[in-house]
């Protein structure tokens, strides 16, 4: 056999696409949101996001070195995890807590299960849930943008009937109110999601069924529908966390069920739970159910149903 002939199995053509490009697209989609959060909270936002990203990457590198595994930092998934974790933290959080959250995200959320693709839960949300139970005070102290005065989030005001002004729809849409770093600006998030859709990185099944369920439940309970859609982490959660391919079901039908489940749980937590916001926990609970949803929504192979003759 001549040396210069290569023999491989078919197909001999493959798309140029790979995981790094996919993750880079997510980063590009979130970049507008980074700018918006820096605009709102200046150095606090910048340092918090940077801390999360740096600690995520270094945890990934070190843990893979220790476990003697193939390094996968170049796929940028750690950057995405760090970014998303940073986005769902309060702007006033001390940096050391954010660092611990990032380490926990990557270590327990991802590497313990075997790295990207094997994690059952969304790593960023694992980190956030961990911080929420470990430092509840710091994790529920919010400051308003620009001036940095401590205040409450609109959902808390609404839930506990605190004295305070619920922002108008325009403010909710632009994001100039107290809340997590990257969850408030609906417009920036939607533009990012639009970019992901253009690049065919996410499918609309999960976000649509998620938001639709929230709308339906809010309408049934006679609450302010638009307020419940625009406030809290719903848009960030629906488009960037619930739609994460690794932890959501494979088939379109399964994605619809997943989104509806997330929406239902979010509204239950918002109205009946102990927290004012339920996006994080509802997605984590539905992540747990993903294997079962996959099992009941398996595709029917060609030629099994719909025989026309």
């Amino acid at each position, binding site marked *: 056999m001549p040396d210069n*002939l290569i023999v491989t199995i078919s197909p001999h053509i493959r798309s140029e696409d790979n995981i790094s490009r996919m993750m880079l697209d997510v980063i590009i989609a979130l970049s507008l949101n980074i700018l918006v959060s820096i605009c709102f909270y200046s150095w606090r936002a910048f340092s918090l996001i940077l801390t999360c990203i740096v600690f995520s990457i270094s945890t990934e590198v070190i843990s893979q070195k220790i476990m003697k595994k193939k390094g996968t930092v170049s796929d940028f998934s750690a950057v995405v995890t760090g970014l998303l974790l940073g986005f769902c933290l309060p702007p006033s959080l001390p940096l050391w807590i954010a660092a611990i959250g990032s380490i926990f995200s990557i270590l327990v959320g991802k590497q313990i299960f075997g790295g990207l693709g094997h994690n059952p839960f969304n790593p960023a949300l694992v980190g956030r849930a961990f911080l929420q139970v470990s430092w509840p005070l710091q994790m529920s102290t919010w400051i308003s943008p620009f001036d940095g005065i401590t205040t409450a989030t609109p959902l808390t005001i609404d839930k506990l009937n605190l004295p305070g002004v619920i922002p108008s729809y325009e403010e909710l849409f632009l994001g100039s109110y107290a809340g997590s770093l990257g969850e408030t600006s609906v417009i920036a998030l939607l533009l990012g999601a639009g970019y992901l859709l253009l690049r065919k990185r996410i499918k609309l099944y999960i976000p649509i069924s998620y938001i639709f369920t929230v709308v339906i439940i809010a309408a049934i309970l006679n609450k302010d529908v638009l307020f419940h859609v625009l406030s809290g982490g719903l848009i960030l959660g629906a488009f960037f966390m619930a739609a994460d*391919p690794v932890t959501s079901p494979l088939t379109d039908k399964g994605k619809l069920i997943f989104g509806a489940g997330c929406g239902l749980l979010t509204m239950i937590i918002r109205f009946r739970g102990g927290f004012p916001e339920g996006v994080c926990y509802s997605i984590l609970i539905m992540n747990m159910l993903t294997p079962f949803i996959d099992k009941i929504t*398996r595709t029917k192979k060609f030629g099994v149903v719909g025989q026309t003759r």
Partner: protein
Amino acid sequence: MISPLFMAKNISSKSILSLNDSIRAWSLTKNSPIFINRRMVFISTNLLYIKKYIKSIKEQKGDRYKKESEPSPYFLGKLTFNGGLHLKEQKHRTENKSIRELSLPRRVVIPLSQHTGRPSVPIVSKGDTVLCGQKIGNSEGKISAVIHSSISGKVVDICLWNHPIIKEPVTSIVIESDGLDSHIESQKKYADYYRYSADELRDVIKEAGIVGMGGAAFPTHVKLSPPTEVDTILLNGCECEPFLTCDDKLMQEYPKDIIEGLKIMMYVLDIYSAVVVIEDNKKKAIESISKIIFNEPNIRLEVIKTKYPQGAEKQLIKAVLRRTVPSGKLPFDVGVLVQNVGTSLAICNAVKNAKPLTSRVVTVTGDCIEEPGNYLVRIGTIVSDLLEECGYVPNNKHKVILGGPAMGIAQGDLNVPVIKGTSGILVVPLRNQTYSEFYSCIRCGKCIDVCPMELMPNMISISVESELWEQAAVFSPSDCIECGCCAYECVAKRPLVQHIKLAKRKSPSAPL
């Protein structure tokens, strides 16, 4: 439109009263070219109606005229199947190169096994002289095919030779050319095939050694005696694989013969419905075929969306006829026979011109070929000889693929012959793609979206990786047609086709 006179003829004199009534009722609707008044004395023409009628005819003719001049109406029928993907076509290299015959090869190697089924039995021995078109191997058993010598010369050896598809070397007949290319004396031609019985024609096709030219090489005479009743023939001119243009070229240059071959098949099977299916990127082929089938009432042309793997039998039937072939069954079970255009041409040549299958059109293309084109190649020509004539530049690292880029087989040895099922030879340089390295499945679901058989390739692959053969079998890898869509799309670069092939072999229900 029934004229009153015609009505009057059909109605007996007894019911003249009712005739009167019916005519009256009819004429009163004003939807007739003439008015008759109530007592049938006064008849006048309905000018308005006639004007309308003439206008409608003019419009109809105008439509017909439009259809002939514009190729675009064919794009309206976007028939297709679920899944699949649009690959970069890359057919520009050979699209406009007409079919050219290559010079006579010095020697040919004709494997006894070029088809699905049992290998042929040689009827010549070492040292015999043979003529071009002479039968050198007889078919054995029910599913087998006859082979012919493709050049004139001397049988040098009957030995084991490497085969382009089968892994182990196969017994092959090596013939050295005498340079004369003398053919056997012409045999009986069945130009007026409809005077002969279907069985006679089947025998002619069998003796011509015709097999499916699309790649699977299933003996055609077996396919033409289906176990169940068939009502439609699909003539497959899709050629969905990138790079290949041989079927496209055949349809452009021999449309008449292809349709003749189709008509012979229809006669043999005694059916009255056939569809020629072409993808919408082959405008010239569509044009040439539609010119021929213009006055064939039983044959229709169907233009379908360009998508890979549109040419796969089950997907084609689904796209064109909306019939679903059940899992594990054959197209016969839904009353359909799918034949490649190349096979149809070979049938026409065999029946009408008494020419056995000794050569075929092969697309030779790729970046490492100086003169890409569609060549008429003698069966048994050694690939390296063929490539040399087409200007083969062996550069650093490259692949030589027999077949298309998606399903073809990469060769490790160029000393293999072209066989009846070889549709293309592709020589492409290796890109900077590492094939050895792959990552964990990130469950993006792209493979599920593109799978034309609606399987879950990633789940099979994950199970195979952990050697869970029973779990892999749950996702029915046996239904996979190995089109490679999933592996093309995979962002984690997983070798999905390889894993599925492994699952097929290791699955608990598979015959060992």
